[in-house]
């Protein structure tokens, strides 16, 4: 059969919008029925939701209390301090984008871009300038990183910069009790809102990581006493709800410590989050440890390395790299779980929302407040999970 030179045009109704619709929306009669049905439901839902959001909702409750939502009762005159901390983080993200490469790009561009876009809204002039300064800070950090990148120890420098950054932000936020210049702002009474949510989750994830690694190693130890203690701790913590751990930390921790030591409620909550997160991190790390082939350990033994060196030089570096995405996931769920400190009475983002609702002029605006709080949590955790997906790609995990 001779093949005609002229290519036939595709049959009508197979391509273009109509073809797409037929293939993806009306492929069978029940699929078509489902499409129509869900279109109807979607229309009703979106219509009422949009009417509410645009017409009925009184968003004044959010815009008037925006400062409360962001930093709680941090003294208004001092609010440049948390703002400066955000700038530092932007700068560090830019720096690590240049040094650590593409994996960090999404986080750097995400934060800078989001804050830069917010400057389009009608905020007061200083706030707008600050918002615009964030993308600039990312750029400055990136430029610095490009200069440093040639250097062999650049990775180390970035790590040190982060550690230094955390120290500086902590001092900046808390201030000095005695020295002049930075008045002391008590974490217990004045940190609140999104600031407290972030402090709780970042402290939780960073401090729980080493404990989690130790627990994971302990669980794989060949010493029964160590192994059983680790298993006991991990399984008990994973078997009970976070609320009970927070509750226990809140009421039992003061009893467990000597009388002279008084610990603040925020610190108690941190300890609770820490123990909880450590048990889950331990399980993530254990998965990473298990994925290291036995042959590598045997090879290390054959070379003559001793146990502690095998763990620290051969097993851990590979295992920890494998568990980075799982740990970002753990960080996201920790970020959402910090909302539970509302139950023990700390004024985090969620509880600030509830305290705003208890003011007489904002009564009955639950929908507005909770929708806003959910939006804030949603933006951050969606951005982080998207970032971790890209990170996974950039690290080339799951492709081996």
């Amino acid at each position: 059969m001779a093949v005609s030179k002229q290519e036939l045009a595709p049959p009508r109704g197979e391509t273009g919008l109509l073809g797409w619709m037929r293939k993806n929306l009306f492929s069978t009669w029940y699929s078509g029925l489902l499409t129509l049905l869900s279109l109807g439901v979607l229309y009703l839902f979106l219509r009422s939701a949009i009417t509410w959001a645009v017409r009925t909702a009184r968003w004044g409750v959010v815009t008037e209390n925006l400062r409360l939502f962001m930093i709680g009762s941090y003294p208004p005159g001092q609010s440049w301090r948390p703002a400066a901390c955000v700038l530092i983080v932007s700068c560090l993200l830019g720096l690590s984008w240049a040094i650590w490469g593409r994996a960090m790009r999404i986080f750097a561009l995400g934060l800078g871009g989001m804050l830069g876009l917010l400057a389009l809204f009608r905020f007061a002039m200083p706030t707008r300038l600050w918002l615009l300064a964030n993308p600039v800070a990312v750029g400055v950090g990136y430029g610095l990183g490009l200069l440093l990148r040639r250097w062999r120890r650049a990775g180390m420098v970035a790590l040190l910069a982060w550690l230094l950054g955390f120290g500086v932000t902590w001092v900046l936020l808390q201030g000095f009790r005695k020295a002049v210049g930075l008045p002391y702002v008590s974490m217990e009474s004045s940190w609140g809102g999104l600031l407290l949510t972030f402090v709780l989750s970042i402290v939780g994830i960073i401090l729980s990581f080493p404990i989690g690694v130790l627990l994971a190693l302990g669980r794989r130890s060949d010493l029964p006493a160590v192994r059983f203690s680790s298993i006991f701790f991990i399984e008990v913590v994973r078997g009970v709800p976070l609320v009970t751990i927070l509750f226990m930390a809140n009421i039992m921790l003061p009893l467990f410590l000597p009388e002279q030591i008084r610990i603040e409620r925020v610190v108690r909550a941190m300890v609770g989050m820490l123990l909880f997160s450590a048990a889950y991190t331990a399980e993530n790390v254990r998965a990473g440890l298990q994925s290291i082939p036995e042959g590598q350990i045997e090879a290390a033994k054959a070379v003559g390395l001793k146990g502690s060196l095998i763990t620290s030089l051969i097993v851990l570096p590979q295992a920890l790299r494998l568990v980075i995405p799982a740990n970002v996931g753990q960080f996201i769920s920790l970020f959402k779980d910090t909302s539970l400190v509302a139950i023990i009475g700390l004024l985090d983002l969620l509880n600030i929302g509830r305290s705003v609702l208890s003011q007489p002029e904002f009564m009955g605006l639950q929908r507005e407040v909770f929708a806003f709080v959910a939006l804030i949590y949603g933006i951050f955790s969606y951005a982080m999970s998207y970032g971790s997906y890209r990170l996974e790609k950039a690290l080339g995990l799951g492709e081996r």
Partner: protein
Amino acid sequence: MRRSIPFWRDVRVLRVFSQILFVAIVALLAGFLYANLSQAMAKRGLTSGFGFLQLEAGFEIGETPIPYAPGDTYGRAYLVGVLNTLKVSLIGIVLATVVGLVAGVGRLSSNWLIRQITSAYIEVIRNTPLLVQLFFWYSAVIYQFPAIKSSIRLPGGIFLSKRGVALPWLRPTGTFRFWLLFLFGGIAAAIVLWVWRRRYQERSGKPGYAGFMSLGAVLVPSLAGWFLVGQRPLRPDVPEIQGFRFIGGTYMTPEYAALLIGLVVYTAAFIAEVVRGGIISVRKGQIEAGRSLGLTEMQSLRLIVFPQALRIIVPPLTSQYLNLAKNSSLAIAVGFPDLFNVSKTILNQTGRPVPVVILMMASYLTMSLLTSLLMNIYNRRIRFLET
């Protein structure tokens, strides 16, 4: 020439020694904490021991699956809390599984619109904290419903109001017990038939129709019994508004409804992802091979995709069930009297932090361990036999 290893480099000695050291450190730490605890308790006049469980509780509980009055003991109040937790967890698990299965299959649907809607649902729910969702359901949805007089009526006799949700229910009548005999007899016959026909099918290679026969064995006697016992054993009971409350049907308090909806909607989004992961883990070639053997689409789903997907699904599904049970402790946010909420009240009244916390932790731990045990047994049953 053999040189003996010095004892400080002997692995056997080192192992024992390091373990003794570890245990000693742990014991010292525990001793230190315990000493502080007993000192602090003595100073504040707190007592330990579980004797308080026999004392009169003296507080009201909003919802009680078993009869309870403020005159009852703390022990009984605690039991009410445990039962409430079990109730909301079990019903929540069943509903979340159904919703999650539908959403998980929907996310893989060939219909573009359905895929987008389910993805949006899953992303929105997974990226916001459960506690915010519970507050939202309670104070921004259920609390905003109209008063009981002007309840929203949904088709099928469902009422939505500020004071709770009323649903139609089946109420057993006097003949219900006789009918149960027929039902159980049918189920027993069905099990026997199932085993026998399956064995026949495996031995002979001919279709045994085990499913059809067992279904028949349940349906025929129970239907026959339905008419034989005279009066109908179950009658539908549709709720009605009488004064300021609902009469008939079954009724959910606003707290219970908010908690149940919140837990189900939240957990179902996670289960949907688990289900989706399980289904896409079955290789396409397997389905195609099934199709080329002449199986229909439903058959290849039922016989090839599902049994293999189940092996992937069960372990993460277990942890979702456990999460739901543990998350039910957030009931305190909406004021539902679950285990944690009741424990907190007991603690506030008795001032005995240590035994109450131990009791609470032990209850949750028992629940978690029992669930994982059951699911592990099930998991072992459906595992690949070859490996």
